[in-house]
C-alpha cells in the first residue's frame, strides 16, 4: 500500500504534463462571443459613412422588421470574402445595416464598388464605440436584431455556406 503512495507524485506530474501538453498542441479557440444576445441593442447613433446611404442608429433597428447588423471594414480581408453571401441575403429581401469600423470614405467607396453593396444603411464607427457597445470583438461580425430592437443571434467571423443556414433560421425566428 505504501509502495503505491510513492507513485502518487509521479502520477500527478504526468497528469499535469498531459494537461499542459494538450493546451500547447491544441490551443483553445478563443472566439469572444457577445453577451448581448437576448438584450436590447445598445444606444448608438452613427453618421453616414458614404454619400448616398443614411447612417445607422438604434432607432432604425426598432422599426418592426428583423434585420442584420453587419460590422465590417474595407481593410478587413474576411469581410471581402463574405461579401457574396451578404449580396445573396440582400437579394432575398433581408435588410442589412452596416457598421463600418475605423474606415475612410474613399476606401469604403472602393470596397463597395469592388465587392458589391448589400447595405441599406452604413454608419461610420470611427472609434469603434458602437462595436464595443454591441460586445463585438472584431470584424466581420453579424448580429440578427428583431423588430423590437432585441439582439437575437451573432456570427463572429465571416458568413459562409456553413453558417448561413443558422443565420437564416435565427432571422426567421426573430420575425
Amino acid at each position: 500500500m505504501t509502495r503505491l503512495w510513492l507513485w502518487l507524485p509521479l502520477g500527478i506530474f504526468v497528469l499535469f504534463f498531459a494537461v499542459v501538453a494538450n493546451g500547447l498542441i491544441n490551443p483553445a479557440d478563443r472566439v469572444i462571443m457577445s453577451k448581448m444576445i437576448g438584450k436590447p441593442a445598445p444606444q448608438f447613433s452613427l453618421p453616414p459613412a458614404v454619400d448616398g446611404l443614411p447612417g445607422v442608429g438604434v432607432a432604425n433597428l426598432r422599426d418592426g422588421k428583423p434585420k442584420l447588423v453587419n460590422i465590417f471594414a474595407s481593410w478587413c480581408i474576411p469581410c471581402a470574402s463574405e461579401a457574396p453571401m451578404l449580396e445573396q441575403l440582400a437579394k432575398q429581401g433581408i435588410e442589412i445595416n452596416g457598421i463600418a469600423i475605423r474606415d475612410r470614405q474613399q476606401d469604403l467607396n472602393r470596397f463597395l464598388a469592388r465587392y458589391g453593396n448589400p447595405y441599406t444603411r452604413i454608419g461610420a464607427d470611427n472609434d469603434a464605440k458602437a462595436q464595443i457597445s454591441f460586445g463585438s470583438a472584431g470584424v466581420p461580425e453579424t448580429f440578427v436584431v428583431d423588430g423590437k430592437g432585441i439582439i437575437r443571434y451573432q456570427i463572429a467571423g465571416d458568413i459562409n455556406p456553413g453558417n448561413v443556414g443558422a443565420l437564416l433560421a435565427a432571422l426567421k425566428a426573430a420575425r
Partner: protein
Amino acid sequence: MIRRLLAPLLLLFAAPAAADSLLPDAQMANIQLSDPAKERQAKALMETIRCLVCQGQSIADSDADMAADMRSLIRQRIDQGEAPESIRSWLVERYGSWVSYDPPPSTVTSPLWVLPIAFFLIGLFLVGGRLRVKRTK
C-alpha cells in the same frame, strides 16, 4: 530553374496585404487626461482590462487598434466622471468576466482563494507530524 529561384526573391519586394485600419488611433487612445488623478484611475482600469484581439495582454500594453479604441473609451468616460468599476461592469456585461483581469469572486474562481489556504493547512499538518515524531524520540 531561374524562375523557381526568382519567385521567392520577388516575394521580398511584394507589398503585404495589410489588414489594418488606415485611420489614426482613436482620440484619447494615447493622450493622457489633463487631471492626473483621473488619468491614474483610467490607467489602473486599463491595466486590468484584457485586449480582445491579442487576448494575453491588457489594453494598456496592446498595440491593437481595438485596444486603442477601448483606451480612448475608458479615458473619455472617466473624464466625464464615471467610476472605473462602473465602466468595468459595462464591459463585462458585453464581453463576459473574461474581459476583466480582476474577476469577481464566484464559484468558478473560488478555488483560487480556497486552495492556497487548503495547501497551507495541509503543510501545517505535515510539518506538525514531523515535529511530533522527533519529540517522542
